[in-house]
């Protein structure tokens, strides 16, 4: 399992990847962000969650430094005990939300993925 970001021909990186990057640049390679740590830019604890989502749901926007190029990601936190500026690392979980609940087709939202855990 990997947490794939995309590096584009112009050197920029995004998570998630897009068919075209900044400036219309084409994707060049994928980078596994799960091998990196990141800094918490901001975070929240959501108490009004949709069907199939844990409650409370701790979320953060984090920033990875990949060889001097920054890339941001959003993800669940393993705990609500965090502060802006903390260092976190991605840890794999088998299920981010219950696929059978909610508006989307179950098969379209059967996701494993990563949560961010304070280092």
């Amino acid at each position, binding site marked *: 399992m990997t947490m794939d970001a995309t590096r584009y021909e112009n050197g920029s990186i995004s998570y998630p990847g897009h068919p075209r990057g900044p400036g219309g640049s084409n994707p060049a390679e994928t980078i596994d962000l799960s091998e990196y740590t990141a800094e918490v*830019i*901001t975070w*929240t*604890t*959501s108490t*009004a969650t949709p069907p199939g989502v844990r409650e409370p749901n701790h979320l953060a926007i984090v920033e990875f430094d990949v060889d001097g190029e920054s890339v941001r990601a*959003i993800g*669940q936190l393993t705990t609500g005990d965090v502060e802006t500026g903390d260092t976190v690392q991605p840890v794999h979980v088998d299920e981010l939300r219950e696929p059978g609940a909610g508006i989307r087709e179950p098969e379209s939202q059967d996701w494993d993925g990563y949560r961010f855990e304070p280092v």
Partner: protein
Amino acid sequence: MERVAIIGASMTQFGQREGEWITDLLAEAGIECLGDAGVDADDVDHLYVSNMASGEFEGQTGVPNALAHDLDAMPAYTQRIDQTSSSGGAGIYAAWQSVASGASDMTLLVGGEKMTHKTTGEATDVIASLTHRAEYKTGVTLPSFAGLTARHYLERFDAPRESLAKVASKNHKNGVDNPKAQFQKEVDVETILESPIIADPLRLYDFCPITDGSAALMLCPESVAKEYTDEYVVISGIDGATDTHVVHEREDPTVMGGVVESGKGAYEMSGLGPDDIDVAELHDMFTILEFLQMEGLGFAEHGEAWKLVEEGYTERDTGELPINTSGGLKSKGHPLGASGVAQAVEIYEQLMGEAGPRQVDAETGLCCNVGGFGNCVITTIMEAAQ
């Protein structure tokens, strides 16, 4: 190019409309708008419906055609406009284009949404489905984005938490004088700061409610407007713009590029600037959005909107620039597809001198309608006809 006029406006009661569905709400606003404008349904060339999710909320599709029949407006051309929460603003842009291009001499725009029959969780999920799957899989909701952004704003600009509560308190106070608002009740800052946490650091009263409702506008060329009335409003500037679909990919989380770009376009078209605006309706789906739009539209410097709110600059009766005299989405309610239209209804009434106890001294007004979390935005500038 001939200027586009607005010659009629209407808005249903916003709130919980039990037993009524999207087609009922649209028809109510549509019939009232026809009457307000003094236009026969036969004379409507184009009929637009702003609506985000009638299919998802109630399994009802094809609403524009249903409305044409309910209003007896056949054979008017019909079209549905979906741009999530900015469907109403996008409808204004589409209606403006239909008239400005010469394709239509009379365009009726009706925005509406029926939401309250769903639970809060279900409605939140319908709205959250607009997010990218990399966001959606985390369980993120639009309120969560507001919490993430509000924390970043407060920490970065050293703004007091109370300043956000003052936005909510101001808009609730304005809503007291709007008989069609969902809530007509003042809420003080202390109550707001003690209400339950929804997306830390934001609490219940930092968020708009889930709402049923509809609003409508009648647009035509200025030359046609003069056949109907001596008093009308013109759209002097309008533009729409997008920002990243993935919210965390924005360079600065406190800047909504769609607000900045659509504002620039609307100002340029109208030949006006922020200092020329007398009254504004901003998309306060969450209190933090009022700050971001004030800054993106040039009413405040970046990171300083909270100071203007603290100083009372945006108060209705005493402020230099009254914002959300209608009560805003916060107090008036937020039936998704109707909200952008209802913003323009408030500005129309202000410019026509028809706002009753909410009336301010205004000849120029602006509304900013935000879709997603700033993913798509429409800014409209309106002026009383000279």
